[in-house]
């Protein structure tokens, strides 16, 4: 079986600055990988590269069978990225945001309600514009979009940030549920213990590269 993510000596530039300086990485299908590293180590860039948002400057990269240096557009329908920003439209309601995202990625619109209900966004909140939501509720809306789209590869950037206790439990159960469905999950987190309990393996990123041995990092 081909790995879900395969990177070899990947270099990604932002202007003249190397976000990734030759990262090599392999994540199997169905795996849950926890990426850790200091601020600015390249975790977010790694996720954005896997989402097909960043162009590859050097090296090779394949995600879900798509060559990153050739075709990043068709890859994007199959990945879901939960970033620091939530990609939501402020003026639209939770329900409208969900339905728009589903229609855009060619999924069934009827998945919107169950996904919202799962994240406790049913009822009044469902018809509330995102602009009036709290930060935690926006986070949940973004998660609901992800859940409804149910992509083959989940890329989660600090998913626990800003969520309350209930939200964190929900998120954990979502991650566990996606494993049951055979989805691949890559999550970045500073909450090492919590993330480690969710994941199959740890990948350490430093200086824009992947350190193969997570040696001596407590």
């Amino acid at each position, binding site marked *: 079986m081909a790995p879900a993510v395969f990177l070899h000596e990947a270099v990604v530039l*932002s202007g003249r*600055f190397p976000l990734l*300086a030759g990262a090599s990485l392999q994540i199997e299908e169905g795996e849950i990988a926890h990426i850790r590293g200091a601020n600015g180590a390249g975790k977010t860039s790694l996720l954005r590269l896997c989402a097909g948002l960043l162009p590859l400057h050097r090296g090779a990269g394949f995600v879900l069978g798509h060559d990153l240096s050739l075709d990043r557009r068709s890859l994007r329908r199959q990945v879901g990225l939960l970033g620091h920003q939530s990609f939501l439209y402020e003026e639209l309601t939770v329900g409208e945001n969900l339905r728009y995202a589903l229609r855009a990625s060619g999924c069934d619109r009827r998945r919107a309600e169950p996904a919202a209900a799962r994240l406790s966004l049913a009822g009044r909140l469902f018809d509330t514009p995102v602009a009036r939501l709290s930060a935690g509720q926006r986070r949940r809306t973004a998660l609901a979009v992800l859940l409804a789209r149910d992509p083959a590869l989940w890329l989660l950037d600090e998913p626990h940030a800003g969520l309350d206790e209930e939200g964190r439990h929900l998120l954990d159960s979502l991650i566990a549920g996606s494993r049951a469905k055979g989805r691949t999950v890559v999550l970045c987190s500073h909450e090492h213990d919590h993330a480690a309990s969710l994941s199959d393996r740890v990948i350490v*990123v430093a*200086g*824009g590269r992947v350190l193969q041995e997570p040696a001596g990092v407590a």
Partner: protein
Amino acid sequence: MKSNRILRLTGALGLAGVVATFWLGLFVTPNAEFFGSLVRLLYVHPSMAWVAFLAYGMAFLSSLLYLWPRTRHPRFDHLAGASAEVGVVFTGLTLVTGSIWGRTTWGVWWTWDPLLTTTALLFVLYLGYLALRRVPGDPEVVARRSAIAALIAFIDVPIVYFSVTWWRSLHQPPTVNLASRHLYVHGIMAFTLFLSFASFTLVYAWLTAQRYRLYALAEKEADEGLDLALEERRAEGVPA
């Protein structure tokens, strides 16, 4: 280097040609019976306009080559930028000489003549393009967007020209129509005109090449910086 010598030769020939054009145009050629001394403007004005259009055409072609995936290379972006910069300078000169012509023939500095109006619009169109090129940001992003802006601008030129011409022709015949003025260009005048076209074209080539070299050097500097930047970035991950 050989290319260096060719470049220097181009520059020298071009400048010598321009000097000769001025000398011939100002001192040797006779006054025209209808225009008097003003005819001397004709030795520089059309060739400046020609260079401007040549430069924009070159910018358009290079932008196309930059956008085409198989020929994408920063050198085409540099060429487009270099050429457009020279083009804007010559468009400015065309406007100034055209304006002087207008002042003496019609007594006004500006007239809404189709050619003049089109040239003025071209001037602002490409000022916008150059402004876009100077926006700070990822060089590849800016290069790609500039290339698209260059296409949009160039496609606009014939539409502008056609609509402006039609706009004016409904009121009065076009005013700058050299052919209808029975201006007899012959002998030393024809030669001066020809020399002017040739030397201004050479000057264009020389300026564009110099500007292009500057771009290429900046690029090379950045490229050489890349390996260093990669080293530094990797070193961030090594605990001191």
